[in-house]
């Protein structure tokens, strides 16, 4: 029998929060099947970076990790564990020594890992081999603060929180540490193209208005969060006042009376009564969620079939990408 590391005893060991940062949230892949209760999806705002964090740890792709918004998180390990950080280029240090993102590291009990603030991009993911052992609510550990659901207490991380690590075999700690090749790492910029499927009330937007929408540049306003990104630019008006409240999908582009687009993301309200011109594809929602106030976006129309193709192409690329083994 191999020896289990921690967590088979009454006391639960894990990573302790020394500094919670601006907004650090427990997230798994999201909460599905609970719309009938009025619960939204939650889940990682940048699903690609989240994917790689878990992949580098050899985890299940729905394993629970931490989403760090803007930065400032500092954790101390209570046990030996293997972690990986991916996403926006936040300066990463372990015991004060600079380290690079997109690879896994062995943390010894007592080691401290810190994240500074990213010059570009806003979200990072910290995963641990085996995932954090958080009790799911409604089938998911995803934190949605507005609903007080998920995570440790339904809210963001605070000082002295302990993020319990799932018990893993000693041998797992000796596993090869891995990294994602530099040229495979996603790059973050201040400009993003959002491929958008025309849908919902699109027939209520005239051809000229659609042309304006797809040829204009929009800037991220000061209202950007996990619920949605409010953009600023040429006003897009439909011939509808409001609509009977209806379901809103991930990426839906809502246009309230002022004509300023709002792209709805993970923590969106499940139903609403504003008209929508279309929906941004999931890959591009992940890119949008890395932008901050003042960053630029453009919308580009795409057919439903093209969107499906891009989804599968991306998936097959991810599955074919091999991680590189590296030394501790």
């Amino acid at each position, binding site marked *: 029998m191999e020896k289990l590391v921690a967590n088979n005893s009454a006391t639960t060991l894990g990573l302790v929060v020394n500094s919670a940062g601006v907004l650090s949230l427990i997230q798994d892949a999201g909460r*599905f099947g609970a719309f009938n209760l009025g619960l939204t999806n939650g889940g990682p705002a940048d699903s690609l970076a989240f994917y790689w964090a878990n992949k580098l740890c050899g985890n299940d792709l729905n394993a629970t990790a931490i989403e760090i918004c803007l930065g400032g998180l500092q954790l101390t390990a209570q046990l030996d564990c293997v972690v990986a950080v991916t996403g926006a280029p936040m300066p990463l240090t372990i015991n004060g020594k600079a380290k690079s993102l997109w690879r896994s590291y062995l943390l010894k009990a007592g080691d401290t890992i810190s994240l500074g603030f990213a010059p570009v991009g806003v979200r990072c993911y910290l995963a641990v081999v085996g995932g954090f052992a958080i009790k799911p609510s409604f089938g998911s550990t995803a934190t949605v603060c507005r609903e007080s659901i998920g995570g440790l207490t339904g809210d963001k991380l605070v000082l002295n929180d302990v993020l319990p690590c799932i018990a893993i075999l000693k041998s797992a700690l000796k596993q090869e540490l891995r990294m994602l090749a530099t040229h495979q790492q996603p790059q973050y910029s201040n400009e993003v193209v959002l491929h958008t*499927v025309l*849908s919902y009330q699109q027939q209520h937007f005239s051809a000229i208005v659609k042309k304006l929408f797809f040829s204009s540049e929009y800037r991220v306003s000061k209202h950007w969060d996990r619920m949605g990104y409010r953009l600023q630019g040429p006003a897009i008006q439909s011939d509808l006042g409001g609509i*009977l409240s209806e*379901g809103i999908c991930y990426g839906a582009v809502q246009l309230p009376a002022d004509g300023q687009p709002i792209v709805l993301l993970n923590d969106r309200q499940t139903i609403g009564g504003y008209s929508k011109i279309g929906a941004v594809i999931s890959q591009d929602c992940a890119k949008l969620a890395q932008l901050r106030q003042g960053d630029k976006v453009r919308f580009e129309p795409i057919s439903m079939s093209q969107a*499906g193709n891009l*989804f599968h192409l991306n998936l097959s690329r991810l599955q074919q990408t091999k991680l590189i083994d590296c030394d501790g």
Partner: protein
Amino acid sequence: MSTIINESIRLEIAGENALMLYFSDKTQASITLESVISAEINSNVHQAVQLIRTHLSVEVIDLIPSYASILVVFNLLEIDHQHLSNRLKYLLKTCGSGGNKPGKLIELPVYYSLASGIDLTRIAKQAKISVEQVIALHQKPEYRVYAIGFAPGFAYLGEVDQRIAMPRLTSPRLKVPKGAVAIADRQTAVYPAESPGGWNIIGLCPVDMFNAQTDPVMRLSVGDRVTFVAIEKSEFLTLGGVLPCL
């Protein structure tokens, strides 16, 4: 892309992995007309939800039924939008031809008073009736749960008597207490938790609308019927109601 499923259902694209079903009344000349609130239409929505849940449980990840629509979120690893459209077309062809079972009936107690219902006076004034009449009119109909959303456990009930229908506040309140029974246009609802809100408050309900610790977590589901019954303050407190600090 707009696909006609039958005389009362049309299918549209929503997003990369989402389709939208819009329901309308057969009596409407054209089903492209704007949707309306109707118990019959909503009952067809309810019927379609059951059918989709039963027959497309592998392909469909999530459903959001509302007044006259269903958002169908599907798993792109299982099916593409064209195949799903065809499956839905076949599945829902005869949907809406009546024979729907009514949902369960739930009675909700309400402590109506000027203290617990801070907008009662304003509603009475606008309707040119007494506060007592406002309270009586609110208890009269058997409401229908048309949709659930906005917040966990928030059920949209319709329809309120035309006389006491009130528009939303122009500026929403930052705090509406848990259990607040409120009116917006011809809809009424019980706030499941303290939250910001722009509906007109007429009373307080001591019953938990959403509790993550209980099973089921929610008493109501779309298609259920609801009646409100007035109770005294003492009973409100006995039932576990908490008066908010105003």
